[in-house]
């Protein structure tokens, strides 16, 4: 197990290097003087421009600029936002809690609803219940999340007045965004759980367990589910990344604070240091989460460790 963990940890390093290189060099593709990414719209003289160029290392070779970019990023320095006139890392730090809260709540929704519907559907395949749950799952993968959010707003805020429409603080402002964001992931988890559980239920050890007199419910929860959930665990890691990226849209729908809205504001404002910092940050988090999921996967399924 120890060597497996070490191997996986080491494998993450080139990916992180690749991500940082991709983010750094692709933003060099933006047309225009890189200096304007520092000065913004301010008009400056030639001498001032030369001094800034020197100060920010814009005269250095590209690979030197990249290395110093990585060096600074490791120390938590992601540059300064043009719009907010303060360090990118401070902006991220200020917006992060709201997004983490939303993503975590959405994950809870996705797991409970997704597993629940998937198990229900698999227990009685091709029944009315199966048809109904799979229709809900189909809606979950087909309906645009921002529209689902707007419909919830229309019903629960505007028509019924039960929940506040916008804002970030408090549990009642988390319900609709989390439900909206979790719905799509729930649909994917439900479909996978159903097909995986159906497959496991056809295995011979399930027949054996039933033959020795165990109740169906016991067989499903004790024997079948443990094995059926292995593929579900992998998808959960991928879904975490999708939830994080999906938060971009949901935060806009509900006017919530968060990393997602920060990114949209940055793109619309052509605030490239901020765009670069947020994308690098979110992608790194995604890599680390998937690493953790891989490790937990090995913990659940011993075949992975020894493969």
């Amino acid at each position, binding site marked *: 197990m120890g060597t497996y963990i070490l191997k996986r940890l080491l494998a993450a390093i080139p*990916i992180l290097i*690749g*991500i940082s290189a*991709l*983010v750094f060099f*692709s*933003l060099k*593709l*933006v047309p225009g003087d890189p200096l304007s990414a520092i000065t913004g719209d301010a008009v400056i003289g030639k001498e001032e421009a030369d001094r800034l160029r020197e100060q920010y290392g814009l005269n250095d070779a590209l690979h030197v600029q990249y290395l110093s970019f990585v060096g600074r990023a490791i120390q938590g320095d992601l540059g300064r936002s043009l719009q907010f006139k303060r360090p990118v890392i401070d902006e991220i730090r200020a917006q992060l809690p709201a997004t983490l809260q939303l993503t975590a709540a959405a994950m809870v929704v996705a797991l409970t609803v997704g597993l629940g519907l998937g198990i229900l559907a698999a227990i009685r395949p091709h029944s009315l219940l199966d048809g109904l749950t799979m229709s809900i799952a*189909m*809606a979950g*993968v*087909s*309906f*645009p*999340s*921002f*529209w689902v959010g*707007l*419909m919830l*707003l*229309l019903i629960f805020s*505007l028509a019924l007045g039960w929940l506040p429409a916008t804002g970030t603080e408090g549990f009642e402002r988390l319900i609709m965004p989390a439900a909206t964001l979790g719905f799509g992931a729930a649909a*994917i988890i439900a*479909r*996978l759980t159903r*097909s995986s559980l*159906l*497959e496991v239920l056809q295995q011979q050890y399930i027949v054996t367990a039933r033959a020795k007199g165990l109740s169906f419910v016991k067989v499903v929860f004790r024997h079948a589910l443990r094995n059926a959930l292995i593929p579900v665990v992998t*998808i959960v890691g991928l879904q975490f*990344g*999708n939830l*994080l*990226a*999906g938060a*971009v*849209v949901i935060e*806009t*729908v509900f006017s919530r604070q968060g990393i997602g809205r920060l*990114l*949209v504001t*940055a*793109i*619309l404002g052509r605030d*490239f240091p901020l*765009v670069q910092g947020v*994308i690098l940050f*979110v*992608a790194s988090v*995604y*890599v680390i989460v*998937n690493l953790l999921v891989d490790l937990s996967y090995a913990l659940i399924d011993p075949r992975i460790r020894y493969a």
Partner: protein
Amino acid sequence: MRERAAALPMPRTGVDSALAANPARALLRRFMRNRSAFAGSVLFGLIVLLALVGTRATPYDPVQMDIPNRLAEPGLAHLLGSDHYGRDIFSRLLAGAHLSLLIGLISVSLAVSSGLLLGLPAGYFGGWVDMLVMRVMDLMLSFPSVLLALGIVAIAGPSLFNVMLAVGIASVPSYTRLVRASVLGIRGLPYIEAARALGSAPLRIITRHVIPNILAPLIVLATLGTAGAILTGAALSFLGLGAQQPTPEWGAMLSEARNYMRLGWWLTVFPGLAIAITVLSLNQLGDGLRDLLDPYMRNSP
């Protein structure tokens, strides 16, 4: 050589003898019998038809403001109501239909062709080509795809065309991986080996023997991928990064309607419903095609 091969008896699989007799007709019959595929294709066909009509004829001018008739409720004059500028929502939805379809079509065409261009040599030749291509794909996959698309729009600048480009590029890795895996699956099969033994050049083997045999899973992924591309495209327009006002793109319509949603439920209900129905029809079609074409992928999500 061709005549010799044709004279050999067809291998009988025994699974579906009708398939061997007339594969196209047998497939069509199974297609009609598959409820999901049939319903999806009829619905999607209808949307394509409406989109074609919509670019030529709409009940009202989709961008002409008509302030006296603003916020009209759905009724006989305005089928789906009018928006805060008095523009007929039904006309705008019709006029915008082809934009959503184009987002799907262009981005998926880009992704499929890049996927073939990268995945075929990677799977067929292996070695350093494979190594290089797959490392780059792994790198792209280490970003959530929406984030990748957002990053590309950030560089290229907000516009509908750039959204198509971004969504296409962001989905290249999934197509490349599928193509490569499919090629790996058939590379060692006797008929490929036979073609190689007969002295066919790699390009000929790839175009005549490999591509036709990996088409089925690719068609399934492209159908489901079109649905996903339309969703992502609409989301980016909703964020203000795609189609700009007053283009009647469905995501952009929702973005505008969001500010006026207190004034009438029809402003936000119908554009979203249009996206949902379009994506739903493609997902149904894709699920059905998967059952029909690809027995191995059956039951997977």
